[in-house]
């Protein structure tokens, strides 16, 4: 038992003589047990059956799920108590969401950070010093990150962007910020409402801007996560210059608990704090700006939305779209029309549309037919 705890927590035997470490280990087990208990209760009460509950109840379940998953993946209490990070063997594994591995409580590795770490690794035997310039030319050890891409592919093939909607810690933070009760920036998306708005030209301009800015996350993925770390300089470019999750979950807690780290803060810290602060402010008014425009992990999972095992589908026989109903499209916080494209690349599978549908025609799940025998359409409508 003792050896299992030492292995699991990645600590030396001498650390067990410290009462703070003992208290932290007990706290970790307590948090994990509490989270598992909550998940069991939610499952037994069928709270994950989105369509059976109204939107209000589903939003509550969703928030509980997000909070619990954050606590589960960040319950290494030794780190939170002592201002260190987990160094045990579980860090071989990547967590599904944007969860910085330098977060004091993180049990697993961040998939985007790991992807860059693999591209940054170089083969010392093949690397050489350029005689003309005198610079050390690093030859990448891996040209393809089989392990991390395989893990992301596995998660994507099973559930697509469900991770963004329910399991990502930074998504959860943005959801919490969006709950601040102020007037939200939500643009109408159907022609009639745009025409009836006070400033139809401005609405069209911002809709166009939003549409093209959404491609930026693919640019971040290709340029900052793959191209620059592999071909230009062995640095985790995205983590270093952009990632607000690292600053929020890793930087701020570690710097507040370690004076030596806080003393080392400089212009890069300021840059990352500014990015984080901007996203926090924008998140008050706009739903999940990071997921919409920046997140490279969401960009990867989005490729799997249309082909994953878990998909959103439409029971066209029950859907009231032909009679003018657009409750799902108006409810979607990501600005997707689920009836037109139930597995859009932008859909984070938060379940809001399915919970809002008055006819229960949106079917999230693994089936291709309803219990009544109606076909469930998972493809775009023509």
């Amino acid at each position, binding site marked *: 038992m003792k050896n299992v705890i030492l292995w699991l927590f*990645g600590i030396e035997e001498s650390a067990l003589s410290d009462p703070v470490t003992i208290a932290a280990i007990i706290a970790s087990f307590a948090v994990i047990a509490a989270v598992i208990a909550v998940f069991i209760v939610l499952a037994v009460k069928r709270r994950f059956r989105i369509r059976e509950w109204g939107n209000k109840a589903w939003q509550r379940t969703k928030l509980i799920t997000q909070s619990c998953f954050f606590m589960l993946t960040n319950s290494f209490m030794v780190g939170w108590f002592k201002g260190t*990070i*987990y*160094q*045990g063997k579980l*860090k*071989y594994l*990547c967590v599904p969401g944007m969860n*910085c*591995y*330098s977060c004091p409580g993180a049990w*697993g*590795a*961040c998939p985007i*950070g*790991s992807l860059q*770490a*693999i591209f940054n*690794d170089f083969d010392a035997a093949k690397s050489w010093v350029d005689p003309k310039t005198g610079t050390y030319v690093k030859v990448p050890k*891996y040209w393809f*990150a*089989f*392990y*991390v*891409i*395989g*893990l992301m*592919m*596995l998660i*994507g*093939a*099973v559930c697509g962007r469900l991770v963004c909607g329910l399991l990502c810690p930074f998504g959860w933070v943005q959801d919490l910020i969006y709950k601040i009760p102020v007037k939200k920036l939500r643009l109408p998306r159907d022609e009639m409402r745009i025409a009836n708005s006070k400033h139809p030209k401005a609405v069209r301009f911002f809709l166009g801007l939003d549409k093209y800015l959404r491609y930026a996350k693919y640019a971040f993925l290709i340029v900052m996560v793959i191209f620059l770390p592999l071909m230009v300089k062995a*640095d*985790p470019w995205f*983590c*270093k210059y952009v990632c607000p999750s*690292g*600053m929020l979950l*890793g*930087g701020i807690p*570690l710097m507040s608990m370690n004076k030596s*780290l806080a003393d080392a*803060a*400089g212009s*890069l*810290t300021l*840059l*990352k*704090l500014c990015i984080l602060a901007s996203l926090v402010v924008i998140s008050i008014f706009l739903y999940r700006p990071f997921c919409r425009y920046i997140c490279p992990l969401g960009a990867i999972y989005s490729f*799997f939305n249309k*082909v*994953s*095992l878990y998909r959103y589908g439409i029971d066209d026989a029950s859907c009231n779209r032909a009679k003018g109903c657009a409750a799902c499209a108006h409810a979607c916080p990501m600005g997707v029309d689920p009836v037109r494209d139930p597995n859009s690349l932008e859909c984070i599978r938060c379940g809001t549309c399915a919970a809002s549908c008055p006819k229960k025609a949106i079917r999230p799940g693994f089936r*291709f037919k309803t219990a009544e025998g109606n*076909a*469930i*359409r*998972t493809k775009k*409508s*023509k």
Partner: protein
Amino acid sequence: MKKESKTSRYLIPAALIVCALAFIVTGILDKEVLTVLRKAAAICMECIGLG
């Protein structure tokens, strides 16, 4: 509208899952996991804004 068949609904994700598992095994055999652990088990200065 063309109905989606059971095969097309499940075959593609199943193939992707098999492919993903093969990638993971390849990565483990190629010792990529060691690189992940080495990076993840130390405080990432770049990630926390210290360069």
